[in-house]
């Protein structure tokens, strides 16, 4: 079976030789190509090449069209990213500096005509041509309730959300939701077939249950309803969300849940059950200091909890650059070994 077929089998509860194994080695691509991050991320060809080399080396089941979190806001006018060859890039130019900028914010009619889309499109085309028939092509899309954090900074977004004028807040959210509609359509048309919906405010670690129900859920519904939830993965940016899985499934219809490493995997598996896919995620920040043996032991533990009964995928979180290569090897070897149904 191809990795794509293995993923489909895991979702549908059909027999497969092993669980799907996903990984995200983003910044590692620059190191692999011997480039600075700024140079690497300036061209879609570089990112595609980096992704293909990482996948070929370690053998996991997916590739990413994501350059870095923050790439999306370049489509909305962000002009500066702070690159650092030791880690992930930061948004350094906030598009919204005052509430007046919210009224001025324009969502492009056709995202694919925007110069900032061109490199993502190039990357996706290469990935699709090279491995699209057999492997998952992942895209990363930020929910309307979280995109403002990239547009104005998390501090200013919390201020507007919790204490600011409701009409200004809602205008921004509407624009972010409209942006999501265009973005998801563009990624689907370009061939992305695993759409990671990043929605940290969809976790009660960010807002309480009451606000989750009255704020997060309605905006997620507005984001997702027009395009549907086919291939959508619920992901809260490493925050746990077991306590809302039932509501998300009922209200939004999403079936695939990419958990936090802090989540109780057994509990999540019991909630998601046979109706979808539970993605168990390793705490890869600990992998910086773990030994290969400790890494293997953790993968074994996750697989032993998640694998019985199928409907389970092994995945990674942020995969910092400082993880030793031996630990990446150990993690993936263990995932294939302990994730085997043979």
């Amino acid at each position, binding site marked *: 079976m191809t990795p794509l077929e293995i993923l489909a089998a895991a979702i549908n509860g059909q027999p497969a030789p092993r669980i799907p194994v996903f990984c995200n080695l983003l910044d590692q691509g620059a190191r692999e190509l011997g480039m600075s991050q700024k140079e690497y991320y300036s061209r879609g060809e570089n990112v595609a090449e980096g992704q293909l080399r990482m996948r070929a080396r370690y053998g996991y089941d997916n590739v990413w069209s994501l350059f870095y979190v923050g790439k999306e806001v370049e489509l909305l006018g962000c002009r500066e990213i*702070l690159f*650092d060859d*030791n*880690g*992930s890039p*930061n*948004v*350094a130019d906030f598009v919204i500096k005052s509430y007046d900028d919210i009224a001025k914010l324009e969502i492009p009619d056709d995202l694919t005509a925007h110069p900032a889309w061109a490199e993502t499109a190039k990357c996706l085309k290469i990935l699709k041509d090279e491995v699209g028939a057999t492997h998952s092509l992942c895209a990363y899309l930020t929910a309307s309730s979280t995109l403002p954090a990239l547009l104005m*900074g*998390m*501090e200013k977004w*919390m201020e507007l*959300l*919790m*204490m600011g004028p409701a009409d200004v807040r809602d205008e921004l959210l509407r624009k972010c939701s409209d942006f999501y509609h265009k973005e998801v359509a563009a990624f689907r048309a370009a061939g992305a077939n695993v759409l990671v919906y990043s929605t940290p405010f969809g976790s*009660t*670690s*960010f*807002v*309480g*249950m009451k*606000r989750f129900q009255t704020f997060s859920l309605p905006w997620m519904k507005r984001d997702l309803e027009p395009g549907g939830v086919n291939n959508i993965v619920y992901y809260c940016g*490493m925050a746990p969300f077991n306590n809302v899985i039932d509501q998300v499934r009922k209200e939004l219809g999403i079936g695939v849940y990419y958990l936090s*490493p*802090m989540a109780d995997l057994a509990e999540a598996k019991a909630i998601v059950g046979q109706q979808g896919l539970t993605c168990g995620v390793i*705490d890869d*920040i*600990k992998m*910086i*200091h773990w030994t290969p043996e400790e890494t293997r032991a953790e993968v074994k533990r996750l697989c032993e909890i998640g694998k019985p009964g199928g409907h389970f995928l092994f995945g990674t*979180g*942020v995969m*910092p*650059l*400082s993880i030793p290569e031996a630990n990446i090897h150990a993690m993936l070897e263990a995932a294939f070994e302990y994730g085997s149904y043979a």
Partner: protein
Amino acid sequence: MLDAIIKAYKEAVFETDKEAAFEIVNRALTEGITAEEIVFKVVIPAVEEMMSLIVKDPDANLAQHFMTAQIAAEVTEKMLEKFQHPPEIIGRVVIGTAYGDLHSLGKRIVMGCLKALMVEVVDLGVNVPAERFVDEALAHDAQVIAISAMMVHSANGENGCRKVRQILQERGLEARLRIVVGGAPYRFDSNLYKSVGADAWAGDGVSAGKVIVDLIHEVKKS
């Protein structure tokens, strides 16, 4: 009467209701409660209770942390204007986001709580070089350097806390300054703070208030 005010204020803070918190404080003032009593018997106990609640409560969330700090800072600022005598400051902290990191929310939450706890805070902003943390701590006669880092490389890299520790060692300043760190990477690896050379860490911005106050007392005793 004070007990009822304390209870109502705590509920408003827990519900992240800033308007209600201010109504309670204003009502208390009109009923003859002093600004000093409001800060020391209402605001500070409420912050301390939120600290312990947040640690125990699995449903505690970022919005609650943010509003706890915001309400505490704003009420304290208003009340300080009405104090008969300036309050005694328990110590000083310089705070900033690690070099290479532009995230400012965690720092703001910590600062709000510290202000209410009568700790003087010097905000160094974001993307702060290690040398500046130390120079500013000395210039302000601070007891604690607080470093916020939301990204793995700024939390664990050579130019953040590790370099601040190295400078303290080189300049023989370790006895008079403590380092505290906070931010998402430390939550995922609770031993990370030790490997980067910090003296302590806090899992959230509100709890950081207590950790920092403890470190100030530690330095002052030594």
